[in-house]
């Protein structure tokens, strides 16, 4: 269960104040997939950063399974993120100096998980890239890199997946494959996911869709035009 209450976050440009999140409230039950829409600069990425503990709000609370992570130290926020959250980025952000297999191994090692070999093989089979286990990321296509990034986000079995425009850097066909993959490996596994996207193709995955506008969240119905 993820719960954000009265979250405020401002940014300053010189002396001018920009309010990005304004008494923001959101509650996401376990296993639900939320899609966040909004214009550039509307605060979507800031919200993901705050949920993951990368950033802290100026005020308000962010509770993950009842723990307010805004009250935690930087180290404890990192450990929470390590344990409970998986990240999927627009630009994949695989570690270029580690092979595919090692990239997947990293979250497992961070969490001291067992059965690493088996879990890596299993998830690689699931994303259809078992044959690329020993390749370095720069030898993979964009779609393949994102599949590995999804596998990396899921391999340590986190409670929440945060995805920032996962298809934003891919062509249409590849984007569809990624949506299909997310459907298979995230939705069917009952994971909570908050995804920032502009892609209409992903919307079908959502349990709820929200728009961010002037720091507030508004629930949007499927089928409405996406700004």
């Amino acid at each position: 269960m993820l719960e954000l209450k009265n979250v405020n976050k401002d940014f300053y440009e010189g002396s001018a104040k920009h309010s990005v999140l304004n008494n923001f409230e959101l509650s996401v039950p376990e296993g639900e997939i939320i899609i966040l829409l909004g214009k550039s600069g509307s605060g979507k990425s800031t919200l993901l950063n705050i949920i993951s503990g990368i950033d802290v709000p100026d005020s308000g609370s962010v509770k993950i399974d009842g723990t307010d992570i805004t009250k935690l130290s930087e180290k404890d926020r990192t450990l929470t993120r390590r344990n409970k959250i998986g990240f999927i980025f627009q630009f994949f952000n695989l570690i270029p100096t580690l092979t595919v297999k090692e990239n997947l191994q990293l979250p497992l090692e961070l969490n001291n998980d067992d059965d690493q070999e088996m879990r890596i093989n299993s998830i690689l089979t699931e994303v259809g890239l078992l044959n690329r286990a020993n390749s370095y990321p720069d030898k993979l296509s964009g779609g393949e890199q994102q599949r590995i990034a999804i596998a990396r986000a899921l391999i340590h079995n986190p409670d929440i997946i945060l995805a920032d425009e996962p298809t934003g850097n891919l062509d249409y066909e590849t984007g569809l494959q990624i949506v299909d993959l997310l459907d298979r490996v995230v939705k069917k596994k009952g994971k909570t996911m908050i995804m920032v996207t502009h892609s209409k193709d992903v919307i079908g995955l959502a349990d709820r869709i929200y728009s961010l506008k002037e720091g507030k969240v508004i629930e949007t119905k499927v089928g409405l035009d996406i700004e």
Partner: protein
Amino acid sequence: MSNLLTRSSLRFLLRHPWQFGLSVLGIALGVAIVVSIDIANYSSATAFNLSMNAVAGKSTHQITGTAEGIPDSLYRFFKKEKGIRNIAPVIESYVSIPDSNKRVFKLLGVDIFAERPFRDYLSQTGISLNGGLKDFLTLPNSVILSKESLDKLKKVIGDTLTVLINGKQKVLYITGIINEDEQNRSALENLFITDIASAQELTGKNDKIDYIDLIINNVQEEQQIKSLLPDGYQLQKSGSRSETAEQMLEAFNINLTSLSLLALIVGLFLIYNTMTYSVVQRRVLIGTLRSIGVTSKEISGMILREALIMGIIGTVTGFIAAYFISKILIIFISQTINDLYYVVSVREIYISPMIILKGAGLGIIATLLSAIYPAREASRVHPRSAMIRSEQESSLLRNVPRMSITGVIFMIAGAVILLIPSHNIWLSYFGILPVIIGFALMAPLIIIMVEKIFSPLYKKLFGITGKMASRSVLQNISRTYIAIAALALAVAATVGVGIMIGSFRSTVINWLEARLNADIFISAPSLISRRNDAVLPEEILSKIKALDEVSDYNFYRELILPQDGKEYHIIASGISKRSYSGFQFKEGDPNEVWEKFENGEVFLSEPFAYKNDIGLGENIKLKTDNGLQDFKVAAIYYDYASDQGLITMNYDQFRKYWNAEGISGISVFVKEGNTIDSVKDKIQTLGTDGQQLVVRTYKYLLDSSVEIFDRTFLVAKVLQILSVIVAFIGILSSLMSLQLERRRELGILRANGLLPSQLFKIVMLQTFLMGFTAGVIALPLGNVLAAILVYIINKRSFGWTMQFEVMPSILIEALVLSIAAALLAGIYPGYKMSKTSPSNALKEE
């Protein structure tokens, strides 16, 4: 976990071989310079101590005398009348062999029957005497030497050997070989052993010996011997001569070590630079790691591990390089020691565990220290892509005022440390560090100022590419300033040491010109250029006085007086009035001092007064033949002949207290109407009884003194060059990294139609500006360093007052050096950048 992170960072290093290799090279050079200086110093000291130990053997104490040694009757008194068993007489001298590239050997005169308890290799079983003991004892001038020495001299038993002892030619007879083993092989290599009677004859020490060796097992025995010693003789521990030698070289060694540390500091800038780059290049990667849960501590640990790996590889490489560099430095350093201090022949490299420990500690700890800040920066990288580059640059630019103020505070702190009244040389060097850091912190401000001036100029001269070049120095200031600061420091060190040497040189030349105010100088051949350890018979002086062509003359007798664990150098002068002007007094009224001098008061050279803390009007106690005697100080004079310092006194007064025969040197004024060369030739023929005379003209002596001076500073110059090489590597490394970082930007430029040659031009214009800026920083810093060296370090090290002289040629050379090093370092990165494929660069995210 750390395993995967380590693997990742190792692969990062291997994927950037240029950066990695140059950093390792920078560390290696820094370590190599420090370690090689240590090895060279240690090898010289060990060679000296080994030869001392070979001579001292198992003796625990020595009885030393005054000027001319000890009468052998004193030895007989202890041996026969007092029944002391473990006692042996010794004469020590040096012999040089004219035909063997001026090789110098130590001549040790011993009583073979008294030797057994002292020197193993001299117990009778240890010597193989062809012709038996009889030849060794009965044949005059017979010597024995090690097999290795025999082989090197290409001699066999029974051969003769012509040598020079105290300037006199002598023929030695080789009658035996010393049995050597692994332990004493090196020490025996340069040793000639002769019977005590032959030694007396060869060295002209009739009825005298140099000292008496003793093995004393308890304090009572020591007290008993002390109580039996007549006035003027003392009992001292056998190691004290090595300690004296160590003291003599202390300042010399500290200064060399400090210069070598400077290279390491330049190396540190390089490591800092590289580590900062490697963090910057991986901001996104580090951000990703942070997003997936790697803690900031683990990130900084990863960077420090990388530094550790580079530190270890660099240090090991540095040790290997040090071995070879030290072989060259040993030649320079032992030459200087021979010129200035004592005779030493260094044939082997000695390395102590302490040198390894110090080198390894310096290399690894210094690397880790310089990686702390980049590691801290890495740990602060915001998760997910983090701060963008331009923000980082503008944050540095915003900090410039604060950095500059901090720089000024550092410089003031350095000045305060330097002004603390102290004789401690390390404290002075420690004070230089904040001054250097202060200047480095001012570097961004100076870069901004130079860019402001150059930007319109570059635009006018080179158009938009010129503008881009000057802007790129500022745009990448977080990278460029470290490289500029490192180059500035290396060049400043060159300027500082250059001005110091130049100032010192002109001070010495002025002093020599005043002091050498005669036409011809006569002395016995000496093995140490700076002092006359050999003497001429007094009859030479009488013969010179009698020459019609000579209008006036001076003479002196030098006496080395071992006292209180030090060596006091006394110069007893018979000086003509016309040479009074050769003395420049620091303290004492020139109108009064000479009368006091005639009456037995002494002049102290400036270093002597400084080191022994004796002032005008105070008394100095000296060990004379009649016991300790007080001498009042009439004046303190400027003198650059010896950093140990000199005590000058009137010759007639001197002879009242010391029975030191012979004359060390004579200088003469040629009467008008005679040519200097003809008088010189005439004096040359005055030597009798095989006595060789060194007769030199004013010009020759001046030139050869300056030559010795220049030779002394050769090591400093070598170290300077090595520091500049380290800084050069720094610039190269910075530019290579910038090229990597700006690949995409360069790709865009190429895609927009910039020619490869234009890209190359941008890089060269950029590096010119970096070199110029480094030069602008280096000139004031170099002058400050020079002032510190001249007024503080040299004063505290050697006690010399020098004139500070800024030579424009040094400043111009420094600016040219700075620009040339930067341009040279820019060639390869410029070439690489110009070859950037636009499509590849643009493809990269």
